[in-house]
């Protein structure tokens, strides 16, 4: 049946269409929202006018402020595949992290950067290394670690891409269509005891087996790369044939598990791992982030911890916290699952942008000027539990700009075991004069 085939083909459409259709478009009339009668509508309109006027007053310079001439920024209101960003804990203090930002500060500006990489709406790189460059990098990495390459290939294979190009050209497909259907995801080099992958955006992945795990101690050889990950392919097989990773065994007295590792234990193991693997980072004053939250069943869980440079001005420390991190990954069995390094390319600075204070952001939050993936409206001022300044630097962010991230208790989601859910709400930290679009929550689940 040809319609079945068509249904199957429709199943292959781009992720971006699937995600788009799963969010409520702002301009549609949702039947789930109550119909507004004229009196409440008039009140709502009046409130809107008052709040807009208040916003203008709030955002108006309080004195004769000389605002620098800087390009306007577009706030990314698409949280992509983030899903519902909620953290679970019995109280907010359990969710403290290593962010050096504190509310008591004298920050007036923060730098904003263009994301040097370009990704499509599904998060796949659209520009970057050519297949030949990816293959060359994979070979180069094998060489610097002294690994013998047994096979070198791209995914999809170059021959496969060539066939698709020929077929698409034969039916007169445009260059754009051909390009969209012939993207190479990564190049890989299979070696004796290791596998290397280089992705289009330059990310490097190195998987080591028990025979080659010692190479992790030479991790500094990858320090020229913007981001890389070293994982330990050390597994055991259960009776039913399922494979689980044990990670790299750690010395006696150290255990790094996902679940029920206390904050003190997590800090201790992170300090040990940093001393063993972190020298290449050049960090002089390490800051440690061992944040964790709970699962529904009340198990404290922490997939990873990270280390950052905590030296310099507060601005430097905030940038380091957000853009230069050395991660250590836990396993179920207590071994080290992997190490990754993220050292973002911040060479494309747009400028130092004046920012609002956390208090001003709090007011904007209460007026609905926020972005969130939480599937319900802000429950009220008294539920605001925590605020911090962070940079959103995901693949869908074309600029890396600061936001105030509020953690807000969601009373409707409290569990019988006492666990509370804290939802994340984001308010742009850059002054509104520099924003093309001040977000307004539209009642939809992003």
């Amino acid at each position, binding site marked *: 049946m040809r319609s079945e085939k068509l249904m199957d083909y429709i199943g292959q459409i781009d992720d971006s269409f*699937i995600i788009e259709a*799963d969010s409520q*478009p702002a301009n549609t009339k949702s039947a789930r929202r109550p119909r507004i009668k004229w009196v409440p509508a008039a009140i709502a309109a009046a409130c809107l006018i008052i709040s807009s006027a208040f916003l203008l007053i709030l955002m108006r310079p309080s004195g004769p402020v000389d605002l620098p001439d800087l390009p306007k920024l577009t706030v990314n209101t698409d949280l992509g595949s983030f899903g519902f960003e909620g953290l679970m804990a019995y109280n907010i203090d359990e969710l403290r992290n290593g962010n050096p930002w504190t509310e008591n500060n004298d920050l007036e500006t923060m730098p904003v950067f263009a994301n040097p990489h370009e990704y499509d709406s599904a998060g796949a790189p659209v520009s970057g290394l050519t297949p030949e460059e990816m293959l060359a990098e994979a070979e180069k990495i094998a060489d610097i670690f002294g690994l013998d390459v047994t096979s070198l290939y791209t995914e999809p294979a170059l021959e496969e891409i060539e066939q698709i190009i020929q077929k*698409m050209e034969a039916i007169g497909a445009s260059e754009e269509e051909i390009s969209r259907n012939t993207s190479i995801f990564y190049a890989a080099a299979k070696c004796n005891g290791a596998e290397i992958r280089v992705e289009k955006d330059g990310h490097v992945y190195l998987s080591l087996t028990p025979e080659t795990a010692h190479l992790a101690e030479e991790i500094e050889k990858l320090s020229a790369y913007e981001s890389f990950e070293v994982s330990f392919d050390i597994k055991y097989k259960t009776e039913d044939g399922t494979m689980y990773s044990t990670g790299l065994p750690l010395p006696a007295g150290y255990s790094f598990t996902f679940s029920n590792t206390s904050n003190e234990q997590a800090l201790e193991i992170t300090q040990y791992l940093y001393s063993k693997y972190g020298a290449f980072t050049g960090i002089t004053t390490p800051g440690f982030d061992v944040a964790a939250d709970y699962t529904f069943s009340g198990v404290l869980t922490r997939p990873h911890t990270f280390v950052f440079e905590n030296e310099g001005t507060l601005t430097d420390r905030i940038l380091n916290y957000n853009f230069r991190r050395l991660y250590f990954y*836990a396993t179920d069995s207590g071994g080290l699952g992997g190490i990754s390094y993220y050292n973002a390319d911040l060479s494309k600075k747009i400028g130092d942008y004046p920012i609002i204070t956390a208090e001003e952001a709090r007011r904007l939050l209460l007026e609905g000027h926020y972005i969130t993936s939480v599937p319900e409206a802000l429950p009220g001022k008294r539920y605001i539990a925590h605020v911090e300044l962070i940079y959103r630097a995901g693949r869908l962010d074309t600029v890396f700009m600061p936001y105030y991230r509020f953690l807000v208790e969601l009373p409707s989601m409290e569990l019988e075991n006492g666990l509370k859910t804290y939802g994340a709400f984001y308010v742009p930290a850059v002054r509104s004069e520099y924003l093309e679009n001040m977000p307004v929550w539209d009642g939809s689940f992003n």
Partner: protein
Amino acid sequence: MDDEMILDLYWARSESAISETANKYGSYCTKIAVNILQNSEDAEECVNDTYHKAWDSIPPQRPANFRAFLGRITRNLSLNRYKEQRTQKRGGDNITLIYSELEECIPSNSNVETEYESGLVAGAINSFLLTLDKESRIVFVRRYWYADPIQAIAERFGMSESKVKSMLFRTRKKLRAYLENEGVIL
């Protein structure tokens, strides 16, 4: 827990990857499966199979969009199960209706024996979707990707059912013309 953390759990072969996936995406996947199978037991089995398929695929895969990745697996598994059980169906179910609607999109030149690579047809459908206005595109994807019943789409977007049917009718006609113009043969 955000998607990156869940993917880290898969990569670390942690059993909690599946429970975290179920916590976060269980209802999303179940809705797709129920739309297609219209049977909660079958849907539950497909959703459980989705988790196992994800477990088998990650690593080596690390999907850029985990939500769409899971939804796609659920859709495929559910449609496969639907096809296996078709002999037991008596017609008139949601997928039978969808198949019959999609018959209208089959290009008239499809009596030729040549078949196209599925990737090429999917590419043409992607290009077609870009030509639509956002509202029509979302309604189309809700109906033919998520297999939402007409009534559910109408409720979701605050439209009448007749408006949804009319939009879908126009979009199907456009798709047929587009596929014909592109020389796509099914």
